[in-house]
């Protein structure tokens, strides 16, 4: 029997506000342990939370970007559970009245556009971190009180590929509107996956499992594959899938049911009496709407229309705020979008990928890439030398002109010099020359190659071709 996966996500993104959600401590990754803390976020007796209005604004921005309704009224609730990293033993979150509701994100997968429903987006606080030592544990509360949004989707996703495209879209949107860094390796973007399977003909959803501890994109996809296969096996063997929370073990590549005590929570949600409801006037919401930057989907359409880029190229460029910004900066200085796009798509992204860097870390200033494109256009370097130069720019941060100068990579345009070289190489290689003359046209490439080799690839390839042909044809 063929089965279909039904997947819904709970995406947590840390917001990049200056300060925490309920106190004025710095919201900063990587500080010394327990340095970004105060009596409020350590939950000392008598301390009270005060809602950071920036968090509300950021949450609303995310909601608008993901096509949500923004209600005028929402409020904060307490989610009660005890764990050492949660200093109050309750998390201030939103339960009944979230900040944003009923959104939608369109994704393109295999040439098809699909609408993924967003159930809600709410704001809440992050917990600290446990550092396990042998025989004891320590707690670092720096992350306690860092603002989060939780984005909950409808069970609208049908494959790991859709999940990938959806998450990339979420990441791009949050980056573009400047509310989150979305760095999975720093934990600023996290995701729980609800997954069930059903026979393709069946309408009703199957019983779902919730997967936790998914710390990278690859973990998410592997976990989806593993878990859907596991559920199919269960069904095939005539048993029932249990509704449960399962922990993904990335090293084992398997999911395990969480122990009862980790799972069986009655969170006893109730309105936080220390905080007042959030009222957003229509004009406040409109102000935020008016201040929204161009979103990835709109940008992509613009690139296709304005710059005649392909759908694929436009998608990749707008997948990250940083590549899009980079592209636009380049086009301003070097108004040949196609050429810019090609260089980013092929050479820049390859180098980023190979060096394991993020788009936010592009080490080549836009002006330098434009400089290189100019050198190529003017024939100062040929395209293969250009790639060499770019690699060097990427590694050293030096401008292209300097690299060309230092390494003597200028194209040789001296026709006389090339002519002399061509004559010498034809003279030194009578056999391939004879081959050519007896009708093997391919033999010509041998001579071109030899000339290029002798000039370290710097000879103007056009000139070389012309001269070789001319001399061989005699």
């Amino acid at each position, binding site marked *: 029997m063929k089965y279909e996966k039904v997947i819904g996500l709970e995406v947590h993104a840390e917001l990049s506000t200056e300060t925490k959600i309920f106190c004025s401590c710095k919201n900063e990754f990587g500080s010394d342990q327990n340095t970004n803390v105060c*009596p409020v976020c*350590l*939950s*000392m*007796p*008598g*301390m*009270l*939370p*005060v*809602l950071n209005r920036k968090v509300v604004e950021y949450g609303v921005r995310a909601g608008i970007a993901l096509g949500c309704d923004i209600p005028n009224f929402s409020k904060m609730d*307490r989610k*009660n559970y*005890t764990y*050492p990293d949660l*200093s*109050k*033993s*309750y998390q201030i979150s939103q339960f009944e009245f979230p900040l944003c509701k009923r959104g939608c994100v369109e994704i393109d997968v295999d040439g098809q556009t699909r609408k993924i429903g967003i159930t809600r987006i709410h704001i809440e606080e992050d917990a600290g971190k446990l550092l396990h030592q042998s025989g004891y544990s320590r*707690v670092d509360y720096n992350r306690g009180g860092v603002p989060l949004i939780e984005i909950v989707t409808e069970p609208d996703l049908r494959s790991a590929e859709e999940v990938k495209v959806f998450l990339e879209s979420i990441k791009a949107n949050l980056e573009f509107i400047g509310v989150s860094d979305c760095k999975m390796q720093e934990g600023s973007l996290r995701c729980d996956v609800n997954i069930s399977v059903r026979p393709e003909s069946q309408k009703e959803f199957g019983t779902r499992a919730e997967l936790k501890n998914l710390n990278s994109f690859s973990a998410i996809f592997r976990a989806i594959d593993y878990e859907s296969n596991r559920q199919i096996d269960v069904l095939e063997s005539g048993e029932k899938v249990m509704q449960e929370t399962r922990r993904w073990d990335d090293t084992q590549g398997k999911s395990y049911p969480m122990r009862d*005590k980790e799972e069986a929570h*009655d969170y*006893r*949600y*109730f309105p936080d*009496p*220390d*905080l*007042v409801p959030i009222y957003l006037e229509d004009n406040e919401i409109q102000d935020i709407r008016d201040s929204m930057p161009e979103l990835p989907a709109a940008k992509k359409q613009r690139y296709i229309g304005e710059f005649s880029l392909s759908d694929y190229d436009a998608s990749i460029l707008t997948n990250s705020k940083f590549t899009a910004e980079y592209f636009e900066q380049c086009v301003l200085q070097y108004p040949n979008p196609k050429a810019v796009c090609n260089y980013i798509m092929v050479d820049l992204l390859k180098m980023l990928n190979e060096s394991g860097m993020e788009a936010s870390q592009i080490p080549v200033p836009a002006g330098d890439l434009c400089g290189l494109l100019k050198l190529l256009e003017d024939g100062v370097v040929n395209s293969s030398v250009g790639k060499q130069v770019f690699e060097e720019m990427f590694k050293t941060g030096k401008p292209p002109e300097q690299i060309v100068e230092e390494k003597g990579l200028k194209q040789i345009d001296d026709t006389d010099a090339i002519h002399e070289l061509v004559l010498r190489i034809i003279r030194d290689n009578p056999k391939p020359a004879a081959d050519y003359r007896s009708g093997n046209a391919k033999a010509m490439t041998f001579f071109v190659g030899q000339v290029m080799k002798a000039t370290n690839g710097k000879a103007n390839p056009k000139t070389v071709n012309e001269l070789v042909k001319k001399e061989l044809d005699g």
Partner: protein
Amino acid sequence: MKLNELNLTQALTLLDKKEITSAELTEDCLKKIEMAEPKIHALVTIAGENAMEQAKAVDKKRAAGKKIGRLAGIPGIIKDGICTRDVRSTASSKMLYNYVPVYDAHVIEKLKAEDYVLVAKANMDEFAMGSSTENSHFGVTRNPWDMERVPGGSSGGSAAAVAADETIFALGSDTGGSVRQPAGFCGVVGVKPTYGTVSRYGLMAFASSLDQIGPLTKTVEDSAFLMNVISGRDERDSTSAIMRYPDYEKDMRKDIKGMKVGVPKEYMEQEMSNDVRRVFEDSVKLFKDMGATVETTSLPTFDYALSAYYIISSAEVSSNLARFDGIRYGYRTKEYADLKEMYKKTRSEGFGDEVKRRIMLGNYVLSSGYYDAYYLKALKVRTLIKNDFEEQFKKFDILLSPVTPTPAFKIGEKSTPMEMYVSDLFTVPVNIAGMSAISVPAGLSADGLPLGIQVITNAFWENTMFRAAYNFEQSAGFAAKPAL
């Protein structure tokens, strides 16, 4: 006359005239503490040396003609659930037996800015849960009027200390009557301001939506004076009212001719001692004599207030006290095998029975399947009670009631929690409705125990409340003192 017997207004006048010094005043308070504490045990921590240093420093400032605050050199005692920087603050719980805050509560910052002198931290029912100050890790406080009896609670230490003249004034906190009820039992004045008037920043939370800090003093005037100091908007408390805060002494001394007074019949239908009824009826007569019109009225939702109160306050406390986990501060059990056992033992050993009872009750009413029937229902009832009160204040300026159904009861007398809870019957509705109220001494029982009346006003009508209370105090002329 010993200086510690002065009220706040008197003491300030003498200090201003330089007839006395703060050092002399503070020393008399400390002497009284030394004498009375073995009998009444109103205090948890005595800041004797520090107090004398502060007093002398203020005296110096005053002598040098420097700018001094409105409470310059006045000794005060603070309930131990209010955080005082560098001075141990325990909420009378074993859980915080060693807790020294690194911050001052908002009210303490205000008092310090006015150069008050912190003399001691007052005993209380653990985390303010109780009506007798019997639920303290540091032992029972006794009523200065009768050592066999309780001072009331939870601010029993604060009330007893003021009654025993160990201090010029005290601060307490009132969640369901915890300032007014002990004030009534100890024959002093106690105020529960409108919710939102005094910042809760630094007050160890019992029930966040009900807690308010209020003064306990020897006169109504002193309470109004203190309200001028401790009230005000505080950005750190989101529930702090955004408004123009009044001068609480304004119009206080105007007469109350034509004031409309309501007496809810539901109060009078409750079981109460003959003494309470007699003193209350005498008080009503006094109001009439002063030119007020008194009418019987009705608060139909009165009967539901106590139930709603115990559901809402317990729900909140179950969450508020969850932070006491033995991880970051306070008590932690000695031996444990793992995290779960550490939690279990720490909380079992660190909390007293009443606190545990409320935590369990609160967890129960919030748990899935019971939330709608209890917590949600209680919130609805709360709204009805609030509406009920607001209706009254379309017709009346104030409502009058006794503070408690009986005078101070004997230590150990209340054998079940329900019996204890009923002693807050008259004070609880005010918190549930978010109104303001004051407890003023009105007379003595046949056994010579003080009894008070409660003046209730609408939210933010404290000026009317103080005016009625001041006029009553002046004509009632209650002057009895405990023979300690």
